[in-house]
């Protein structure tokens, strides 16, 4: 029997994989993709509970999350392109112009 706990575990694992990706990788594109994984983990949780509670509000929120993810991807990738054009790199460690 598959309970919401299973989905939560799956979601937590996916979330952590995303977090690890953000921490470990220094390639900004991979970091963005890890963030997408995190957002998906959230969505899995939302949909799982929506299923459990027989209430589609969770799915509605998942749609909002997808919309935010789309916006984030568009702007983020625009920033990456602009950055790459100036510095010829996608390494996040070199993005330190605004550090101080």
């Amino acid at each position, binding site marked *: 029997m598959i309970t919401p706990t299973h989905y939560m575990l799956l979601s937590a694992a996916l979330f952590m994989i995303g977090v690890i990706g953000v921490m470990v990788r220094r390639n900004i594109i991979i970091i963005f993709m890890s963030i997408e994984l995190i957002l998906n983990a959230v969505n899995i949780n939302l949909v799982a509970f929506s299923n459990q509670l027989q209430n589609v509000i969770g799915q509605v929120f998942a749609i909002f999350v997808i919309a935010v993810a789309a916006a984030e991807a568009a702007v983020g990738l625009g920033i990456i392109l602009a950055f790459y054009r100036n510095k*010829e790199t996608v390494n996040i460690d070199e993005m330190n112009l605004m550090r101080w």
Partner: protein
Amino acid sequence: MFDTNELVLNMGPQHPSTHGVLRVVLRLDGEKVVDADVVIGYLHRGIEKLSENRNWTQIILLTDRMDYVAAATSNVGYCETVEKLMSLEVPRRARYVRTILCELQRIASHCLWLGTHAMDIGAMTVFLYAFRERELILDLFEEFCGARLTYNSMRIGGLPLDIPPGWDQKVLEFCKIMDGKLGEYEELLTHNRIWLDRTKGIGVLPASEAIALGLSGPPLRGSGVGRDVRKDEPYAAYDEMEFDVPIGTAGDTYDRYLVRLEEFRQSLRIIRQATEGLPEGPIVGKVPRLIKPPAGETYHAIESPKGELGYFIVSDGKSTNPYRFRVRPPSFCNLQGLRRLVRGHLVADVVALIGSLDVVLGEVDR
């Protein structure tokens, strides 16, 4: 699209729409052409040098191999140059037949141009239609001289043989067929929205620049310069023919297209006049057995389908071969305009522009 670096794209020498072995090195910014280098010479056979070691009659055969889609025109150009050097009188009938052959050849060459040009822009049906009509011309040539591509159909001083009986009727019949087929091409292209979008305003060349680049033929006339060797320095029987020289106004690809289409019609008009008024008489003038022009040099140009085709020949008057043989090929000179034309256009326009210059690589590289 590629932000920091320009992309260098090597178009050719093996490319479906460079009309042979032309190589264009494009420097692209995204899809926009920043600069282009035209690299030629992949088909160089040294025809000019070879000619200096052949006797005067053998050279006719070599001229076939230059503009291989308009071999008869090259033959006529060469023979007339030698005749000019030797001050030979060509009989009127021969001159008329030469005119017919030249104009048939012009139609055949333009058919090939139309087909490939349309094919480059994506209209594949026109290609086959145009080749269907070119086939009829090749049949006529086959009947006249036995060959379909490299005719070797001219002799110094006249023609190798008279036209076969009934040939002139067939030519007239062809003219009638061709009249109708031109409408077919126009229906598919001239007012086609996509065709207009693809050709109007592409590769605009003002008259002054066209002259400065040394263009000739339809690319020059498309820019609005009414220069045509047939009118300005008549050869063969053109002084007795009545025809117009179409010129364009905008100097873009579409105008060059319209000019060539009108040339189809004018050629048909000339062929009709020449065939109907074909005089009787000998076909060869008084030619010595051994052709050995007196010492001297001459330049003679004719209007080949591509533009001004000129021969510069020096004879030392002693040997049976020319001392110096040089061709001014229209394709070669017109190709110089390509770099100027493609700048600022897109990759897709490059093929349209190569097509609209109508180059034959055999003639460019010689």
